[in-house]
């Protein structure tokens, strides 16, 4: 275990996040001679896609699939590279001078980085439907985490609902692990198929095509798939049944567990708090950082790689990490030997092929992004869609004023669960574009830390005793 007090006060490169992008970046930079530290807040490296890669109790390769096990090579490469890899390390602050605030085992440290690669990946897009806060309703990603890290599978009557490639992957993984899934409620709007058609040729050339088709076949052979247009969860104290509309008819179904998923979006909190410029991606309906060809951001020395730079999946994330690392090494040690960036870019391009089709096809419907009435939007502070709607009607122009009026986004998750919903609700209410409404101004610490941890930061005696007014 690496203690916080053992860190150097500065590193050439600090990599934040131990998923594919972070592992690939740290391995490449360290091998090129840059002093490199990688921080990951989980007990083990791997990120979401390769979660538990060095420790999962699931040993059968078939359950999680060969794409998952590809992460093992990446993890081994990073560990052998000489980079310092610190797990259980929460990065809670990053400022434009690349000072990194990190906590490990209850102790905080500030570390100066010459370059930073943010590889904090993605978050599941919020799925704010009536009853989504009931026990028994969880995100598909949370179920996948339990499966990968602990070999746990849900039992009882299980329903999956939503859309997107990951929904099918999780369904297949759960089925292989022995879960009985009663049905998949498919929220993909039928009209999306038409819009996605122009992207079909690229998709047919991509690796997604054959893999996706095989997944769909595998799942559909075992589970009925019901297209739906509306969904709500109900129960006293815990989930007991769902109600949904399919082809104009309403249904009610008893259920013990509902797993929700409608895609993933970049996790922008750390980059945003560091001052990195972001823009609204109209196709994917989310914020993404503004980056150059090397994944460098608007803040000098800070790059964003992986899905945090825009959703493209695990294999693309690793290539992005390599490109960002090559740029960092060029800046730090111009004479060091690094892989040819052009060949990495070509691999990345191949991996990104087909995203247009998936993004357009699985763009979630308004009904599942723009809640109404008493549906909770901000789970931390229990703010409802109606409150946001009313406050918008009264003239509240943006998410930051909404914070002040409703404490919306002021809880422990710092808006990670409600940010996109709030921006889109205000935009809809004002008949404005989400890009014009803007997003929460994110404040460090981007992850909560305790007062004791903060007080453990080394401070000089002079500062402690300073008599100042």
């Amino acid at each position, binding site marked *: 275990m690496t203690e916080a007090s053992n860190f150097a006060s500065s590193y050439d490169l600090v990599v934040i996040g131990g998923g594919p992008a972070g592992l690939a970046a740290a391995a490449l930079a360290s091998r090129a001679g840059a002093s490199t530290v990688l921080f990951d807040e989980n007990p083990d490296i791997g990120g979401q896609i390769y979660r538990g890669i060095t420790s999962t109790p699931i040993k059968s390769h078939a359950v999680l699939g060969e794409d998952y096990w590809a992460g093992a090579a990446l993890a081994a490469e990073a560990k052998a590279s000489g980079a310092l890899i610190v797990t259980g390390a929460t990065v809670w*602050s990053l*400022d*434009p*001078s690349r*000072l990194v*605030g990190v906590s490990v085992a209850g102790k*905080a440290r*500030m570390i100066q980085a010459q370059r930073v690669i943010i590889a904090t990946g993605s978050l599941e897009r919020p799925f704010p439907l009536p009853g989504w806060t009931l026990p028994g309703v969880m995100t598909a990603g949370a179920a996948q985490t339990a499966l990968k890290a602990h070999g746990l599978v849900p039992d009882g009557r299980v329903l999956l609902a939503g859309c997107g490639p990951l929904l099918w992957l999780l369904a297949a993984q759960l089925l292989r692990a022995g879960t009985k899934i009663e049905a998949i409620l498919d929220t993909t709007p039928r009209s999306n198929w038409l819009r996605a058609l122009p992207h079909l040729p690229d998709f047919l050339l991509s690796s997604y095509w054959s893999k996706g088709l095989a997944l769909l076949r595998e799942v559909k052979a075992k589970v009925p798939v019901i297209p739906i247009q509306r969904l709500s969860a109900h129960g006293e104290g815990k989930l007991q049944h769902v109600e949904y509309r399919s082809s104009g008819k309403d249904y009610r179904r008893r259920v013990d567990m509902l797993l929700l998923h409608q895609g993933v979006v970049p996790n922008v909190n750390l980059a945003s708090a560091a*001052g990195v410029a972001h823009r609204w991606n109209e196709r994917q309906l989310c914020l993404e950082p503004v980056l150059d060809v090397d994944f460098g951001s608007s803040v000098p020395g800070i790059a964003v790689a992986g899905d945090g730079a825009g959703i493209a999946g695990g294999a693309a994330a690793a290539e992005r990490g390599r490109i960002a690392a090559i740029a960092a090494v060029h800046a730090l040690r111009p004479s060091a030997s690094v892989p040819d960036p052009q060949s990495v870019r070509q691999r990345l391009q191949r991996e990104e092929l087909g995203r247009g089709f998936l993004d357009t096809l699985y763009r979630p419907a308004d009904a599942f992004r723009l809640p109404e009435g008493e549906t909770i939007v901000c789970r931390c502070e229990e703010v409802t869609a109606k409150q946001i709607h009313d406050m918008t009607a009264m003239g509240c*122009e943006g998410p930051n*004023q909404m914070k*002040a*009026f409703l*404490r919306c986004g*002021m*809880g*422990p998750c*710092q808006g990670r669960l409600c940010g996109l919903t709030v921006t889109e609700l205000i935009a809809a209410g004002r008949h404005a574009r989400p890009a014009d409404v803007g997003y929460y101004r994110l*404040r*460090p*610490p981007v992850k*909560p*830390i*305790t*007062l*004791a941890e*903060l*007080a*453990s*930061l080394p*401070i000089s005696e002079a*500062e*402690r005793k*300073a*008599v*100042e*007014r």
Partner: protein
Amino acid sequence: MARIADVVVIGGGLHGCSTALHLALRGLKPILVEKDYAGRHASGVNAGGVRQLARDIAEIPLSVSSMAIWEHVEELVGDDCGFASHGTVLVAESEAELADFQARVDDLRLRGFVHEELIDRTELRRLVPAVSDHCPGGVVSRRDGAADPFRTTQAFRKRAIEKGAEVMEGVVVTGLSRVGGQWRVETSGGPIEAPKVVNAAGAWADRIASMLGEPVPLEVIAPMLMVTSRLPAFIEPVVILRGRKLSFKQVSNGTVVIGGGHRAQPFRDQNRTVLDWQKLAVSAATVWELFPVMREATIMRAWAGIEARMPDDLPVIGPSSTSEGIYHQFGFSAHGFQLGPGTGAMMAELVATGATNVPIDGLGIERFAAS
């Protein structure tokens, strides 16, 4: 065609909004111009302390008059602004510090001010049971309290509009010139003409003063604050220290706001601040020592608001020394929130009548004329 007003108020912080409201209550037609939105900066994000305690002698009359408004703020603006009056306690950390406080309280008595009251160890424990054992006593101002800063600024803004003020947000002042007997205020939303102008532009007020050939040594500062997750109620009054930088309060939702004046790095042209965690760690260590109950509390957010500080830590209040019809109301040096309601009333009186009943001696801009 220029818009016509009786007074142009520059700046939509609490001070600007309060002045606009009080001008409107006097039957004048003010137009308030704000470059962002009301309460965007220090007025909306400060610690919310409503404090008469430990103020400079020059400010006490304004502070006392302001407190009279705070105690009836709902009658004025139709909202209680979240104001709760549980007192402010200045905690002494040593006998020597307590002796200094005694001298201060005695001095105030001689000047006729009785709001500060020395308390011993027993009374300190009664008011602040969670305070660390090493503290021998302190000073209390029992009518002090705290309010919700953004809500307060919004309430003053809203009532000002109801009473006839016009508020232009997202509008930047680009120039000031004398046209006949009028001031012509150039803005990104078109020109406005008025005989009087109030400069309540906060951290940007020196730029307005410069347009008048009246430079001031204004420092742009960004005092930092932290807030914790919700805790069970354990403290009512606001606690401040003298020897070390700390202001500390638990608000009604259970969260604890920790401030005290450690500063972030401000970038006023970008509306941005960069926090200094080494200094916030000093705040955390101070709280650790003073309130053992807080040690496992979780810090949820830290932030800083951009505002102005003058070299003597006192605001600039009163008529311009170079330009007739211009009035200054800025430079509150990290303690202007409590003064907002009273200073607005005083300023409206000064603008409307040319004189004020509340003394503002020693606060005028002419004190920087030599610099």
